[in-house]
């Protein structure tokens, strides 16, 4: 039985085409992936991201514990700040990639992938059970208590303060929601309840992500669609979410990341703080940072007219099948086939000619610097 978010009937009313994603029944599109994608690049879009998981970690040992299980340095977070980070196994393989927010001294909110809620929570509980100061640690899977939306696009800042008026009441203290800077999070009153708002997203555009109760999120969805209408807002599905994040080369768990792939190989080594002291996976990751990796996640563009590249298509270079596409699509912004895939390091340099095998036919492509799409 697929799970449904608080916005399920809203999606039905809006004519969303529903598909299975990570155990959830979610809208893949409402009208057209291309139209929704371009709305986010040029104006604004709103996404239901209620399927994402939320875990809270608190207690006197919370900071030390999170620094032990996550790759980025959590001590850099003061109340109201968030960071992208990863959770690895001992081999450096990725359990999940996530956002960690510090809500107040020693109180953290982790936003994790929908498909990874169960393995993440099991992993965190197992690591907590063997943590020396486990008695000073509280770990709660709050995924069932929260719904969430992402509001993304260059025009969002023009109307979001009308949707979430007033100053913040917790975490980062700001006079208005648009005063939040990138990666900052604040609590705001919303209707009869409150919501957490962060200036983050998964599209490469400016925007906000809003977490709250089912009632608060249903309420805020309606308000944002109404107030955003003069600015060209569109409800957007997972299809556009995927093409948007692929253009800017943000990894998606199960594609660029899995338990046998490290953040260094995936190209997100920037979020591995080797200098912070020991943490789970550090030895393996330090070895890779020092000695290099055998495979790398590269971005590529098709250079001949072809069908769009798709996940699992073979990658050829130097006359041999050297790897596999992990994400691929027709880029609505560039009107060109694009993707990411893993190749041996010798073929990873930007500008390397490669081929993508599409239904038995090898089509010319070239590796390019990340992100594939940059705002002009």
């Amino acid at each position, binding site marked *: 039985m697929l799970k449904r978010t608080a916005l399920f009937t809203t999606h039905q009313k809006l004519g969303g085409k529903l598909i299975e994603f990570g155990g959830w029944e979610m809208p893949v599109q409402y009208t*057209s992936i*291309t139209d929704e994608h371009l709305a986010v690049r040029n104006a604004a879009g709103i996404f239901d991201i209620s399927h994402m998981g939320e875990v809270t970690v608190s207690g006197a040992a919370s900071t030390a514990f999170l620094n032990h299980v996550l790759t980025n340095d959590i001590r850099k977070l003061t109340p109201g700040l968030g960071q992208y980070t990863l959770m690895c196994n001992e081999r450096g393989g990725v359990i999940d990639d996530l956002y960690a927010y510090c809500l107040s001294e020693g109180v953290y909110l982790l936003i994790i992938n929908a498909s990874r809620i169960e393995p993440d929570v099991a992993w965190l509980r197992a690591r907590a059970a063997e943590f020396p100061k486990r008695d000073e640690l509280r770990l709660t899977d709050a995924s069932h208590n929260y719904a969430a939306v992402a509001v993304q696009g260059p025009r969002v800042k023009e109307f979001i303060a009308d949707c979430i008026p007033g100053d913040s009441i917790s975490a980062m203290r700001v006079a208005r929601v648009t005063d939040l800077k990138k990666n900052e999070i604040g609590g705001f009153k919303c209707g009869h309840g409150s919501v957490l708002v962060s200036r983050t997203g998964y599209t490469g555009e400016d925007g906000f992500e809003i977490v709250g109760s089912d009632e608060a999120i249903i309420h805020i969805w309606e308000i944002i669609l109404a107030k955003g209408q003069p600015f060209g807002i569109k409800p957007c599905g997972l299809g556009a979410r995927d093409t948007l994040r692929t253009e800017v080369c943000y990894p998606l768990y199960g594609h660029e990341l899995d338990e046998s792939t490290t953040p260094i190989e995936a190209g997100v080594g920037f979020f591995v703080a080797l200098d912070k002291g020991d943490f789970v996976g550090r030895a393996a990751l330090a070895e890779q940072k020092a000695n290099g990796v055998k495979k790398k996640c590269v971005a590529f563009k098709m250079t001949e007219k072809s*069908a*769009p590249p*798709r996940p699992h298509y073979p990658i050829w270079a130097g006359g041999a099948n050297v790897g596999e596409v992990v994400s691929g*699509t*027709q880029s*609505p912004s560039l009107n060109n086939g694009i993707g990411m895939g893993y190749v041996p390091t010798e073929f990873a340099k930007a500008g390397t000619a490669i081929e993508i095998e599409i*239904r038995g036919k090898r089509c010319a492509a070239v590796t390019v610097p990340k992100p594939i799409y940059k705002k002009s």
Partner: protein
Amino acid sequence: MSNVPSDLKYAKSHEWVRVAGDVATVGISDHAQHELTDIVFVELPSVGRKVKAGEACAVVESVKTASDIYSPVSGEITEVNKAAADDPALVNREPFAGGWFFKIKLSAPAELNSLLTPEAYQAQIGG
């Protein structure tokens, strides 16, 4: 609501057939193009290829997925629509006109009788 022209025959897999003499023109229905949306690539069979009814012989790709197109009838491919390959969005804009896929010389015209009438196809797509 999808357009279902009354002068065509339809396959359950959403292709349409327009017959003129012993040659049939094949394309995909308005309902199919609407379900696919954002068509970005069309791969056509080679002229001269012999296909059987129900055989996958073309591919249409939208942003999100690739779908096989099945020939509703048996015969030999006599012509393909290069305009649709050059401008795949034509299939979205004109599924029953400029967005046709291929023409096929019928080898078993009796197969046409087993295709869906416009009314039956309309009922299938919940018309």
